[in-house]
């Protein structure tokens, strides 16, 4: 087993732990094992991981994303000159990103129920186990800090001097404590009033949001920031700021470098008092947390819901019992498989954001925006991106259940795929196009309404063709394997199909009545395509 730097640092505080009656030797053994396990775990916000064994590489990739964010933040910090405003931006971004990463990547530690069964059956007391949990999370946060806040510290030193270092580091520690405690209290509240299932859904939602943010958020943020106005901003005090922790963290810097007004001392006191008092409250709630965590043991139940609209759609679309059942089955899987949702929704988010980004790109330099009239063509990226959903539906975290397809001698794959594709269209494709339509309506009014209808028809018509390229037995492979790259041939083929549709759409404007003819062809093409091109024969 390797030695970890964080443990070597922790060793310096051995006497303090022992002074509080903690068995430091046991604490260290537990922490070391936890750190080894962390090093073998792929981050939730993962990039393209090729093999399970490439854990170290994958973790480094995870940290690279943190560093990218850190560098971005440092750029800001360097630009802003007012100490209060600077730290307001820093602590706002830091709180947000660290909380998101903590929830997304480390909830399993906070909500762990396994430790109890492994450790408390051994001669280890609850206090050591709880402390190991807190330290494990703080070590994770310090690592995160190095990448997220490290570049900002360099920016601060460059724009002030070396004295910022101790103030900044103490503030980071207190911010970490606050973030950890706020997260723990939120979990405690959710578990107190609801069941573990809701908490799992919230964590899944945050994970999806963060994946989207990390994938495409930067693109938007860079385009939205006006650096010149940031440089000249100045802080004005308001008594409501006592309630906003984001604003407190500039105070020590302001006192040190500029002036010492009374509210700054209150802010500084709050930075210290709030996390420490919360920590004492957390420790006193430790037992309560443990008993509430029992709610997470077992899988929990899905909330009772009738899904009447979904059932109605299934009933209208299907004459065949197998395809109806397949539609319902796929809907249930898409609803409940959190790992699969974590892959599908970020992929779909690119479908919404890419066309918007392309439109924004034309506005660089503050020029007045003049639509070219061809903006609808950007929407074809939706179809291309939708091919990744086709690629993903063969994966699931419950893939082992797929043995029933083989053991039952099931043969009617055509109807199985038909129901599956209907569900994909119902849950993902049609909402994606509608959302894009709404965004286009906001930007261009109703100018492209007809084109969006054509795109919708074209998309529905080619779903079976996409299915022919990509579909395999649904939900039948481990979700961990979904990071392998899509075959280039398949991608080229789907690109060709989408390109042909975009070209046809483009030329339909040139021919007289072309758009009406194209709409008619597509409308007629949908049942033909779904009847003859659906895979599974």
């Amino acid at each position, binding site marked *: *087993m390797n030695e970890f730097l964080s443990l070597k640092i922790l060793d310096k505080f051995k006497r303090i732990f022992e002074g509080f009656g903690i068995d430091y030797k*046991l604490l260290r*053994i*537990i922490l070391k*094992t936890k750190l*080894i*396990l962390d090093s*073998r*775990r792929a981050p939730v916000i993962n990039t393209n991981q090729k093999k399970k064994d490439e854990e170290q590489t994958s973790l480094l990739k995870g940290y690279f994303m943190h560093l990218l964010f850190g560098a971005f933040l440092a750029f800001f910090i360097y630009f802003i000159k007012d100490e209060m405003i600077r730290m307001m931006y820093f602590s706002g971004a830091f709180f947000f990103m660290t909380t998101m990463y903590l929830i997304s990547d480390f909830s399993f530690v906070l909500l762990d129920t*396994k430790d*109890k*069964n*492994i*450790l*408390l*059956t*051994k*001669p*280890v*007391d609850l206090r050591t186990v709880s402390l190991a949990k807190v330290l494990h999370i703080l070590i994770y946060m310090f690592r995160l800090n190095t990448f997220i806040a490290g570049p900002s510290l360099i920016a601060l030193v460059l724009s002030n001097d070396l004295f910022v270092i101790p103030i900044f580091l103490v503030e980071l520690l207190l911010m970490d404590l606050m973030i950890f405690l706020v997260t723990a209290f939120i979990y405690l509240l959710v578990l107190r009033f609801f069941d573990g299932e809701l908490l799992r859904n919230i964590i899944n939602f945050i994970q999806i949001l963060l994946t989207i943010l990390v994938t495409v958020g930067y693109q938007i943020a860079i385009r939205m920031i006006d650096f010149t106005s940031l440089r000249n901003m100045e802080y004005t005090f308001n008594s409501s700021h006592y309630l906003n922790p984001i604003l407190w963290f500039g105070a020590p810097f302001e006192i040190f470098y500029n002036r010492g007004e009374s509210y700054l001392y209150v802010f500084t006191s709050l930075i210290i008092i709030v996390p420490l008092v919360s920590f004492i409250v957390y420790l006193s709630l430790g037992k309560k947390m443990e*008993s509430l965590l029992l709610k997470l043991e077992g899988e929990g139940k899905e909330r009772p819901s009738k899904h009447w609209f979904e059932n109605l759609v299934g009933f209208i679309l299907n004459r065949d019992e197998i395809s109806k059942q397949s539609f319902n089955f796929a809907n249930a899987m898409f609803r409940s498989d959190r790992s699969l949702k974590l892959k599908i929704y970020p992929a779909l988010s690119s479908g919404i954001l890419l066309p918007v980004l392309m439109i924004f790109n034309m506005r660089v330099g503050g020029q007045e925006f003049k639509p070219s009239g061809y903006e609808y063509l950007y929407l074809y990226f939706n179809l291309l991106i939708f091919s990744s959903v086709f690629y993903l539906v063969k994966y699931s975290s419950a893939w082992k259940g797929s043995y029933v397809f083989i053991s039952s001698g099931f043969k009617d794959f055509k109807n199985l795929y038909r129901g599956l594709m209907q569900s994909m269209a119902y849950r993902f494709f049609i909402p994606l196009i509608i959302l894009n339509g709404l965004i286009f309506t906001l930007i261009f009014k109703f100018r492209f309404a007809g084109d969006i209808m054509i795109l919708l028809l074209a998309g529905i018509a080619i779903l079976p063709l996409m299915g022919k390229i990509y579909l395999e037995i649904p939900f039948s492979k481990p979700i961990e394997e979904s990071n392998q790259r899509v075959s280039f041939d398949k991608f080229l083929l789907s690109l060709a199909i989408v390109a042909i549709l975009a070209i046809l759409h483009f030329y339909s404007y040139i021919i007289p009545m072309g758009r009406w003819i194209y709409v008619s062809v597509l409308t007629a093409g949908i049942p033909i395509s779904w009847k003859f091109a659906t895979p599974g024969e």
Partner: protein
Amino acid sequence: MSEVLKLEHVSKSFGSKDVLKDINFSVNSGEIIGYIGSNGAGKTTTIKIILGLIDDYQGDVFIFGEKVKGQSEYKKRIGYVPEVSDMYDNLTAQEYLSFIGMLYGIGEDKAVKKGKEMMSVFGIDDAINGRIHTFSKGMRQKLSIITGMIHNPDILFLDEPLGGIDANSVLVFKEVLKNLKEEGKTIFYSSHILEVVEKLSDRILLINEGKIVIDGTVADVMSMQSDSSLESIFNYVTGFHDYQVLAKKFTDVFMN
């Protein structure tokens, strides 16, 4: 024989459900106790209370004469093999053995050496460098047995320990338990597989709906009914008489 385990008026409820109702029994060193009951009768809850995994219960538990509530030191002298074992799956078996060895204070090297030898008895020593998540159910259970016993405990708590284990290894394990009894170890064997319990145990504790309804030697228990099988006594005490009716119902549904 000295008393090594004692439960006095132990009760536990989850919400409005009373899972254990005033449990009282004691166990002497060197005894093999068969702790039997239907699913949900309260067997695992009893063991979790003894192990300190549940501590909000009424009554007292004594091990080696000491109250166990809030204590952890006594766990050096007890071993536990659960039905489904939580483990750190991303560790190799060797790393896990070494980790458990350190927790019990027997040292990494000794734990690994002993663990490897025990693994070879079960025919899984080749997998010592494999990550636990790659293990089959049976291999996991064998590793769980090994890690539960590696520190030479005086009392062994076994909660359905044989799930997923092959027949040969079951034979070996049953022999191991007999040997341990001869060495003066106490074994608290909880199961609903009555055949194994009947063969191994000196004494039977039968729990039904949270209450101990039988506490006696195997011979005493067998003499309770003319048809002297533990299974029939179990059915009689738990008030379960209509198994043939239920089997018929299942068959009818199956045939349609």
